[in-house]
């Protein structure tokens, strides 16, 4: 392991390990998995988002470059892409996520997955991975999740150390969950906010105390699956295309730090929330035509959309300052994608 490499010409080096528990233990009760994933960390990435060259960190698929694929980042430069490539499994499977940390320690927390403490990826309750570790868990409930680093999380998740995590029902994609609705078209959106002032800080910024202004977040760049507003309305990795009469499942991962509101245009008709945070709702919840949903960080929503008539419909997402002493939310940005019905 080599410490102290540059990420995007920003020092990612490690100087302190305050409060960390560095280790690379064997996996307790290790069994042969039904499916496995390999993730290596990188801290020297650069991704152009809406024309801005953003230094990024993340997880590569083991042995090579990451990115691409459903829900995975596009347009990643050297190092890897934001977001990291998805983990997709079936309900009931025993999963191994093999993490190898390059450059500096990190962890993987499978967000919404509830394994034992040892496999939860939170250093303060177990250990931070310095070298390698195989997380072992069993997927108990189909739904939409994500995974991210949980070390100095405030900085590491912001730098892009996250990816989608989908659990399909035992029969595989096409049905949201056992007993749930089927779908013809699937989209995964990880919607994130970026404050460029945070993207040139070291791995352990203020971990031992001191002021790195990590309390002060002012995003000036917004993205869906790592794409900026120059591409989100047209790029096929985000923009949704369906035929009239088809059902669309939109898996929405709120990957940012400030409140987001997604606004569905009236032309798309009624939208139903069928699941939240990886759990089916007791009853599908109607978002009436033209309605919107206000979200807070790390929520996930599964939207079922059944558009009736052909057209191209804009879906607007607005971002608000997290500081709201008066209760009023102040909009600070937005991004748009589209649903095209043929």
């Amino acid at each position, binding site marked *: 392991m080599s410490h102290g490499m540059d990420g995007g010409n920003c020092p990612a080096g490690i100087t302190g390990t305050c*409060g960390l528990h560095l280790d690379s233990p064997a996996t307790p*009760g290790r069994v042969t998995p039904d499916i496995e994933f390999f993730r290596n960390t990188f801290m020297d990435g650069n991704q152009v988002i809406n024309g801005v060259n953003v230094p990024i960190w993340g997880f590569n698929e083991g042995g090579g470059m990451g990115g691409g694929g459903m829900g995975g980042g596009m347009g990643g430069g050297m190092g890897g892409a934001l977001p990291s490539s998805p983990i997709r499994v079936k309900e009931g499977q025993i999963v191994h996520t093999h993490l190898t940390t390059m450059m500096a320690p990190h962890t993987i*927390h*499978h*967000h*919404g997955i*509830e*394994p*034992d*403490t040892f*496999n*939860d990826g*939170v250093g*303060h*309750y177990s250990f931070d991975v310095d070298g390698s570790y195989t997380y*072992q*868990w*069993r*997927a*108990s*409930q189909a739904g939409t999740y994500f995974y991210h680093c949980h070390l*100095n*999380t*405030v*900085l590491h*998740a*912001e730098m892009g150390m996250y990816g989608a995590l989908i659990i399909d029902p035992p029969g595989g994609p096409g049905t949201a969950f056992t007993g749930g609705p089927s779908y013809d078209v699937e989209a995964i959106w990880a919607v994130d906010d970026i404050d460029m002032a945070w993207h040139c800080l070291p791995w352990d910024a*203020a*971990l*031992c*105390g*001191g*002021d*790195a202004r*990590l*309390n*002060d*977040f002012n995003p000036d760049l917004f993205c869906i699956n790592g794409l900026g507003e120059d591409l989100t309305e047209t790029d096929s990795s985000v923009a949704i295309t369906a035929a009239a009469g088809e059902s669309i499942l939109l898996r929405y991962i709120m990957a940012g*730090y*400030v*409140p987001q509101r997604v606004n569905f245009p009236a032309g798309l008709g009624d939208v139903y929330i069928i699941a*939240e*945070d990886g*759990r089916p*709702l*007791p*009853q599908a919840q109607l978002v009436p035509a033209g309605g919107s949903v206000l*979200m*807070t*960080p*790390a*929520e996930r929503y599964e939207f079922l959309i059944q558009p009736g008539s052909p057209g191209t419909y804009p879906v607007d997402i607005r971002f*608000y300052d*997290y*500081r*709201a*002493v*008066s*209760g009023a939310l*102040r909009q600070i940005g937005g991004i748009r994608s589209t649903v095209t019905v043929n």
Partner: protein
Amino acid sequence: MKRRAFLQRTVRGSGVLFAGGLGLLSWAPRSVAATIQVALGVHAGYAPMVDGTSAYMVTFSGGSSVEFPGPTIVCREDDLVSISIQNPLSINAVFHVGRTAIRHTVGAGSSVNFDFEAPPAGTYLYYDDQNSGVNRSMGLHGTLVVMPAGSDNRSFSDGPTFVRQYKWLLASVDPAWGEHLANSGVAAIGGIDPDSFSPRYFTINGRSFDQTDEPNTHIKGLVGDATLIRLLNAGGMVNSPHFHGNHVEIVSLNGSNSSGARKKKDIVSMFPLDCRDVLLPMATPPDAWPPASGAQHFPMHCHAEMSQTAGGGFYPHGMHASITIGEAPTSEPQLD
């Protein structure tokens, strides 16, 4: 007039149990309604922050100095709550109970006494609603818990049963606002722009992690000990508490009670002034393989990750508390 027993509510500085455990007595089932008497003062002064600094705050307190957050008032439906407030400061203070018409002003340098009938069973924030949220965010807030009459294991009459209950009162602190008042006098509070809020400390029950590791805030229970958590956001930011280990069921949302099948979440959105009661099933972590045995330890932290810092860094010493599944608490939690 209903017949009521008379319960003297003795309040005190933070960190100590109520004298005589009257906090517990006031929500244990009893045959008659009571008058719950609460004496509060309005105080300004420095409160300790987790990194060894201190922040100047203005608070309701049960003692003679600043107390962050203010005392928890526990009563049951049908109780009469009798409050006296002394305000030695040079500014008016307001005692308002959210979602109700209860609102009383205490003039500068004076005192008031007033009574109110307990509102319907649930979780309420009491706070000073002046200056577009600035007074509340400076620390003038606390919790009012109303238990249903005749029950000590539900939060409303047909709600789910719990084995124990906790309160997590969330707040966010901007010490620059406090310094402004310390330097210019508390009367300067009216000139603070609510949009200038830049919080640097993030607390649950007035504490940042790992000072949240105390019996009223660190949640513990044996497997199957369903646990009610009353979440309130008195602070000035949008929080997003995330539970590791178990999803929670949304029991009540700002006074709207869910009696049927409940939504399960690992994120509980908390906008300023929100009061949300959730039920933690305290189940064995469902995705563990092999199945978990022995006590399991998890964080609950806000996922608006700025809240995981103190003084601009020092992760994770922010809005974060621990949950232990599979171990009973050594002393039962109070709602204080």
